[in-house]
């Protein structure tokens, strides 16, 4: 077993979508290693965090929402590990006013669809899923993040959209399984920074998060296993 970390503070940068999970993992981690003080999770879009890391942000651990972003900061990190996976679901407002049942319904002209922009991870995944299903969708809006999609569906502005299972679970939308969604899997990598001020605790935290305790917490929040 690896040596228990001496203690000290630990700074975790986590993409917005995994930040709530990281918060819980951090609490469990602190319970296990009372000497370590995990600072409140710093969360933002993966790209923002990556930019900040490039400019020398003092982080120990970085949990990204996709592998592309992790690849972007590759020179700054030790080898990443996959923390969790996520799959897309169809999200509709409560009551499903447009009667959306399957991916094909998104192509109906009377259904207002919002998707993530292709540049953000959920948007890329949505595009792949729709391509695979051969469904051509004309979205009303390409949101900058999942929050935008969920909000528009929740207030009834849009009739349907594609979001991650974890996001659908958290909010006031109804999730409908989409065929072929399990083919398009998004992986959440976690890595320790080379410049980590507290490398031992960082390594331990990354392993803890990817380990059984971390995975249990992630599963509870709807994430899939790697």
């Amino acid at each position, binding site marked *: 077993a690896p040596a228990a970390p001496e203690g000290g503070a630990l700074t975790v940068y986590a993409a917005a979508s995994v930040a709530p999970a990281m918060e819980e993992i951090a609490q469990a981690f602190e319970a296990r290693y009372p000497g370590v003080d995990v600072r409140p999770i710093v969360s933002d879009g993966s*790209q923002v965090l990556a930019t900040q890391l490039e400019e020398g942000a003092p982080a120990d651990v970085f949990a990204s929402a996709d592998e592309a972003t992790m690849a972007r900061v590759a020179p700054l990190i030790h080898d990443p590990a996959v923390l969790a996976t996520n799959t897309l679901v169809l999200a509709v407002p409560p009551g499903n006013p447009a009667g959306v049942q399957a991916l094909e319904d998104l192509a109906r002209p009377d259904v207002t669809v919002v998707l993530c*922009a292709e540049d*953000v991870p959920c948007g890329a995944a949505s595009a792949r899923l729709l391509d695979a299903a051969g469904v051509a969708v004309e979205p009303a*809006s*390409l949101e*900058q993040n999942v929050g*935008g999609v969920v909000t*528009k569906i929740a207030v009834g*502005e849009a009739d349907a959209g594609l979001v991650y299972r974890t996001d659908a679970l958290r909010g006031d939308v109804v999730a409908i399984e989409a065929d072929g969604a399990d083919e398009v899997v998004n992986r959440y990598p976690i890595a320790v920074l080379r410049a980590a001020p507290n490398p031992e605790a960082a390594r331990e935290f990354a392993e803890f998060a990817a380990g059984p305790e971390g995975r249990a917490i992630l599963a509870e929040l709807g994430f899939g296993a790697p």
Partner: protein
Amino acid sequence: MTDDRRARPPRARDAAAGHLPRILALPAILGLALLVVPLGGLVARADWSRLWVDVSAPAARDALVLSLVTGAIATAVCLALGVPLALLIARSRSWIAAVLRVLVTVPLVLPPMVGGVALLLLFGRTGPVGGWLNGAGLALPFTAAAVVIAQVFVALPFLVLAVEASVRSIGVDYERTAASLGAGRWHVLWRVTLPLAAPGLVAGVVLCFARAIGEFGATALFAGNSPGVTQTMPLAIYTAFNGSGVDQGPAVALSLLLLVTAVAVLLLVRGWRPGSVR
């Protein structure tokens, strides 16, 4: 603040600049540097080889046109609604004016994203105004009109506050003179009050336009991000930023495009131009 000792053409110059401490030039230049140098850095880092490609992409052009058009319309709407509001505040008794001013200022403080949610709740399909409009066959969200509304919502306070301060400074004496020469209220407004408030109006329009075409949060939420329809420059820049990978090339390129266009527009606004009235 300017150097009084330099030789000048032999023409009397009012010794106006001489009444303020010259050392103020120091913080002034520091402030200017703080605003300008980061932009310089941005320009320096730009990838000039790819710049043209990024800037001339159809999506960029669409976004720019949309931004300019919606920004101009929003500014016009702000003028139409904001100038009367500013006049109302400037000419109200002090406590009414104070209350109105606070009401106008509050939306400034709100993060635009929350403003977007508020607009969505009001004008959305299920909102009180939106439901009513829907009944009339009008849907605002996901349209360019929504972009304008979002921009007006965030930019209006700037115009109102700038114009109000200016109108208040002018006082009512010239209006009285005009009225006693027989000028009706509209004549007074157009020929006296507004021309005299010109510096504040110009400042207000510039603040308003700049804020409108820079608006991001409320637009993203209320109008969405549909290229060609509601994707304004800031949304395009944000999208580019998210998709950029290692270098922020496209985002920087689009930002520079926005900057250059904005400068061009500002230079066309009377008063921001050399040779304008003092």
